[in-house]
């Protein structure tokens, strides 16, 4: 087990290395002039040249790459060309908002998805099943920005019961002390007992969280349903029934544990997708997170920022895959 984890971590570092190299090369192939961006629109030729020296853009690509890697080892991702702030510092500011959104939507996505999957396997070919299947196909195929806009127009535009976007209302921001421990507002306000901030943050989280949860719900529900249907035909399920075990235990314990493998793989894929999905959802809901951050970084070809976010996503994917493998190893037949 321990050897497996160490092996996978080493492999993960290799993957990261590859991702960094490819992104590094790609960013440099795209025709642009970061030095000109760095000094602003009204800079003289001499200023641009000076900036180019400062950013090390005159060195060969290999020297730049070596510099980048050695900076990275020290935890330095360079300075954002757009804002002139260290990328690491900016990531730390924007990341918690995104993580809050991703965790909450995945958590609900997975549990609602599992429940729907079990429900539809239990009532195969009945109307509940058809409804669940329709729902899961819909959630996977309808683009999230469309759902986001629709929900905004209904709940903000028509009923005016939920906020349009951002993490907190203006008056809450002005008149309350906003706790900052982990940066995740719900958690921070909960442990400091700040109910005003907590409920306001919760209200702001509902719509973007729901939009982001749709994809995992659909994916997990479909996967769980098909895995369960296959398992429910197994001899040990018939045997369990014939020993008088109630359907509840058979479904939620005997069958579900056997279907965990495919479901776990899909869940990690879904979290990965959710991370990418923040890109759209955060833009629509003006959520000050990593998706919004990289959207503006890409538009202005802010390559240190792009690299920073890429490395973060790659690290998350490697980590999530490791978690999936560990979940699959709950099956005693899998030896790791």
């Amino acid at each position, binding site marked *: 087990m321990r050897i497996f984890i160490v092996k996978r971590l080493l492999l993960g570092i290799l993957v990261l290395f590859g991702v960094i190299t490819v992104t590094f090369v790609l960013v440099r192939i795209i025709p642009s002039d970061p030095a000109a961006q760095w000094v602003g629109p009204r800079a003289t030729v001499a200023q641009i040249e000076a900036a180019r020296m400062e950013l090390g853009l005159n060195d060969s690509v290999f020297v730049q790459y070596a510099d980048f890697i050695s900076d990275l080892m020290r935890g330095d991702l360079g300075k954002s060309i757009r804002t002139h702030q260290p990328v690491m510092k900016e990531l730390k500011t924007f990341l918690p908002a995104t993580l809050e959104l991703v965790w909450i939507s995945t958590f609900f996505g997975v549990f609602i998805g599992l429940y729907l999957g079990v429900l539809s396997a239990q009532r195969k070919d009945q109307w509940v099943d058809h409804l669940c299947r329709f729902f899961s196909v819909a959630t996977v195929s309808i683009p999230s920005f469309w759902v986001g806009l629709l929900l905004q127009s209904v709940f903000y535009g028509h009923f005016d019961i939920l906020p349009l976007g951002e993490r907190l209302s203006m008056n809450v921001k002005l008149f309350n002390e906003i706790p900052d421990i982990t940066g995740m507002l719900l958690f921070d306000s909960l442990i400091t007992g700040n109910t005003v901030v907590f409920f306001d943050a919760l209200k702001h989280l509902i719509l973007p969280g729901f939009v982001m949860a749709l994809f995992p719900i659909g994916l997990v529900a479909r996967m769980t349903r098909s895995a369960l249907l296959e398992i429910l035909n*197994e*001899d*040990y399920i*018939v*045997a*369990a*029934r*014939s*020993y*008088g*075990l*109630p359907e509840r*235990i058979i479904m939620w314990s*005997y069958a579900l*544990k*056997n279907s965990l493998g495919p479901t776990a793989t899909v869940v990690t894929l879904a979290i990965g997708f959710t991370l990418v999905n923040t890109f759209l959802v955060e833009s629509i809901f003006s959520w000050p997170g990593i998706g919004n951050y990289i959207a503006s970084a890409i538009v202005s070809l802010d390559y240190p920022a792009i690299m920073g976010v890429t490395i973060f996503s790659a690290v998350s994917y490697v980590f999530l895959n490791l978690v999936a493998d560990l979940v699959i190893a*709950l*099956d*005693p*037949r899998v030896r790791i």
Partner: protein
Amino acid sequence: MENYFEIKNLQVNYRTYEGEKSVLNIERIVLEKGKTFGLVGESGAGKSILAQTILGVLPRPPGVIKGGSIFFNGEDLLLKSEKNMRKIRGKKIAMIFQDPMSTLNPVFTVGTQIVRVIRQNQGVNKKEAIKRAIEKIELVKIPDAEGIMDAYPHELSGGQRQRIIIAMALSCDAELLIADEPTRNLDVTIQAGILKLLSKLQKELHVTVLFIANNLGLVSATCDNLAMLHDGKIIEMGTTNEVLYNPQHPYTRAFIEAMPKDREHDCHLKRIFANSNPKEQFSGCQNVSLCLEKEDKCNLSVPVLKLYSGTHYVACHMA
């Protein structure tokens, strides 16, 4: 006197793309308390369907129970609700399945599975259930019962798994055991061990056993009474001696002759009638095309089970 266990006019159909076809049509089976009843037939004769119908775990669809009744202690099992059937399954009637490789849940330890069955059926706490589980494992003669409790099914051999399944079936103190080809996937030496264990347990615990097999050798060694099942119908029934030593139905005779005996003189397997295609509808005896002893009347009507002598019943126009 009321019979302990009796099947009357049971009819089970299967839904196919060409409509419903009869797969089981049993006029009468009676099990005596404390005895072993053998049900013999080829693959596809309907043996497992019968077992699943008795326990109420027949997948429906495609199965459809058309009519008849299964009396157990005077109550008709087919009229019981799913909730009441669950009180019978495990507690009163338990089943030993044919494939020990796939009957245990692969992701739980053997102990967890037996303990759960015991807690469900006996309503005792966990500690007591563990104690009883260990007793049952010792009863089926597996050494190191406590160690086995923590083993996963894939860590056990086929014979050990089948013993665990027997322990599980016994762990609810059921009075009727349905053994559906319990030795089918085991090799011969382990078969012998399992059979010995089953008949020993049957004598010690006074359970009634419905023993389903496709091997006459196994049945003759363990069963008091015997029924031959062919094409979903009982074609001959009686005590083991009556059926095996005085077979009246041509199919039974062919079945007995098909047993490999002396390898030097008998190296060709005898041909026996296959199960007919359930899609074909025919007014006469199902076996008429392959039977060597047929007469004109065999084409006209389906033979019914009738008394031949003593307790010996045969369904053949010629008997």
